[in-house]
Each structure stands twice: as C-alpha cells, then as structure tokens.
C-alpha cells in the first residue's frame, strides 16, 4: 500500500516531461506550489528531460544554416539588462525557456517568513480599512477587467512558500489588477513596485503595498503598450524608483 504523498511525487516525472493530462497537471501544480519535496523531485528531473534529446538520431544540419544564423543575429543586439536586474533574469527567462516544467512558477528569493507578517500585524490597520472601502467601490470594474476576454494573466507564485501574487492585464481598458496574498507589508518608508519586463528592460507599472493581513487588491493604470514577457516586484523607497534598486523578490512569466 502506498503512502498518500507518493501519489503526488509519482506525478513529478510526467510533469517535468510535460506529459500529464491537463486536469492532473492543474492539480499537481497547485500541490507543487506548497510542497518542497515535490519541487525537489521536479528539479531532479530537469536535467534528465534536458538530456533526452541527445538520443535523437543524429542528422547534420545543411551547411548554409550556420551562415544564415550568423547573418540573422548580426542585426540583433544581445540583451544587456541593468546589472542589478541581472541576477533575477536567470529565474525569469529560465522559467520561460523551460516551458515544459515551470512556465509560470517562479523563485522566491527573499528570506521573508510568516513570522515577519505576524509581527507587523499591528502596524497597518488603518490602511487595511481604507483598502476594504476602496475595494468595494472598485469591485465591479476590477471583475470586469479580470473577466474580459482580452485580459492576460500572470501568476507570480512563490516556490513552496508565501507570498503569491496574481496579475491581470487588460490592455483595452489600460489597467493592471494585482492581487497579492501572504505578502508582508513593506517596511516603513518603503513600498512595493511592480515592473513589466520587455526585451530585458524593466518598466515601472506602479507601486503598491499590502495590508497587515498580507493582502492587496490593486488597480494600476497601464501607461504603456509595451508587450511584457515577464513581471517582477521589488522593494523600493516610498514613492518608487525610476529603475529597480533592489533585486526582485518575486517574479513571473506572462501566460
């Protein structure tokens, strides 16, 4: 008789390979977000999946392909993102490149913990109340933004730990709805800033903060029509910064 959790870890191989059926993949992804053992299991298969293609029958490419590639890339500048962002990008674009396994899963780089959240519980009650009032007033337009057929969503999910952030982008109505959970409020004099990343360059999408319960539902105006491939959140001085001054602690790929 198998241990209950074994039923989950048995899905890790198929998940890494991208061969789980849709419903199984959905439930496994939800489990994966909160299970370190399964994350380790999925990680252990990553290089295996990366190696399978080495077994393909060897077919040499046509000789002209090399020249074609070198010619095509000549006119394209290699991306050179700002240094401070450089450490984040491996997680972001690695996630995009490994579409099979982890298309929308991200890395939670910070050391924040539930304990921090509990300690700051007293600090932001007023913010929370104001937030709730605003929420009721905005409920309808937000739901409309989320449910509109041209809304894109990005799930920024911490790997195995809080916080979790969802983004809903509605280009037609020029708005981004951000929904955060289990994210301790930024320290005094600081704020969270959301960035959209296009061609490796971060563009500010606005600032926000969470209430003491770690939640936020915020509507941010969409000031630009750049096509973002990813988004990330950093901790910044109050008022925000023109470019990120800290390493993003949560990020994700747009689906």
């Amino acid at each position, binding site marked *: 008789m198998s241990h209950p959790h074994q039923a989950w870890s048995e899905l890790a191989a198929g998940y890494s390979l991208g061969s789980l059926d849709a419903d199984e993949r959905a439930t496994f992804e939800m489990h994966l977000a909160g299970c370190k053992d399964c994350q380790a299991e999925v990680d252990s298969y990553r290089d295996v999946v990366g190696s399978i293609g080495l077994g393909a029958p060897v077919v040499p490419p046509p000789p002209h392909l090399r020249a074609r590639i070198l010619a095509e890339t000549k006119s394209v*500048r*290699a991306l050179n993102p700002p240094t401070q962002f450089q450490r984040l990008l491996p997680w972001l674009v*690695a996630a995009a490149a490994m579409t099979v396994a982890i298309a929308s899963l991200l890395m939670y780089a910070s050391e924040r913990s539930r304990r921090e959240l509990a300690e700051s519980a007293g600090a932001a009650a007023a913010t929370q109340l104001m937030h709730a009032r605003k929420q009721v007033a905005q409920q309808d337009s937000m739901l409309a933004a989320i449910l509109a057929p041209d809304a894109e969503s990005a799930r920024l999910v911490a790997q195995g730990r809080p916080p979790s952030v969802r983004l809903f982008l509605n280009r037609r109505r020029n708005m981004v709805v951000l929904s955060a959970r289990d994210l301790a409020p930024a320290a005094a004099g600081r704020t969270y800033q959301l960035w959209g990343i296009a061609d*490796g360059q971060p563009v500010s999408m606005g600032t926000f903060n969470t209430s003491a319960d770690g939640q936020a539902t915020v509507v941010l105006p969409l000031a630009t029509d750049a096509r973002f491939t990813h988004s990330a959140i950093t901790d910044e001085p109050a008022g925000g910064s023109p470019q990120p001054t800290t390493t993003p602690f949560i990020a994700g790929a747009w689906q």
Partner: protein
Amino acid sequence: MTESDWALIERMSRGDERALAHVYDRFGTLAYSIAYHILNDAGDAEDIVAEVFMQAWTSAASFDPARAKVAGWIAMMTRSRSLDRVRARNRRSRVVTALVESSAQPSQSAPSPEVAAEESDLRARVASCLAELVPEQRQALELAYYGGLSHSEIAEALGQPLGTVKTRIRSAMGKLRESLGAYLLI
C-alpha cells in the same frame, strides 16, 4: 583546454558573435536532430534551429548555469518550438504516426557496449541508457518527448491502458535519472 559551454554563453551575452558561432558548432547538430526528429521536414527543422539560436543569442544574459546545462537549454528550446510548430501547422496526427513507427524500432543510436564503456560523453551515455530501457518504456517516453503527447494521448496512440502508460513513463524517467545522475553533475 576548450572553453566550457557556460563560458561561451557568457561571452555571447556580451555580444561576442564568435562565441555564438562556437555555440552553434557545438550544439547546432543537436538542435537540428531534435527538430528534424519531431518535424520530419528539413525546411521546418532549419527554421526552428534559426529561431532557437536567435533566442539563445538574445537571452544569453539570463542563462543560469546553476539551473541548466547549455545542451539541455538548447534542447528544451528546440523541443518547445518544434512542438509549437507541429501544433501551428496542424501536423499532429502525421507526426504521431511517424513517431509511433520509429519508436517501435530498436534504438538506432546506441554505441556498442565497449564504446559506451569508454565514452565519457554525455551523448553516448544517453544513447546507452535509452537503449537499455524496456522497448515499451522507451516508446512511451519518446512519444511524450518528441510528440509532446499526454499520457491519455499516448495510451490512445498505442492502444494501451492509461495506467500502463503512466507506469512506463515513470519507470523510464526513473531509470534515466539513475543512469544519468553522475554524468549530469558535471
């Protein structure tokens, strides 16, 4: 001493076109072989490889050697784009049929045991591991990898029970992980 794969990517990220040429020389055949195995069309395979190396060129700065090997990175991009093209061109059924046939045959690329024992090359190791798999396990794995098929789709394509397919893929992946484990740490 030759440059490590990662060092080449790092040079590429700084706009070094000769590094790109070296990366193509090392991994171009791998990419083309995978694309061709999936698409069975020289023109499509060529387009895919061009796209893959363009993507590698523009995203080199974000490559993290702690998370992937360069070969795996190239392979995954190639597989992903190839499967996307199969879907986009509505060629799925044709591709699946071809894969069912080819994967039913004995693994062609396995070197002799003597050669495999001497080779420290990862490629030879992978070929050996695949050849050592029970044929039904290898077939299910190849349909998943090269066809992008789900468990249900594989079961239907092969006329096998779903549970059997799941077990075979799990077993194949487990064996590969065990066999390749030490090599992948390099």
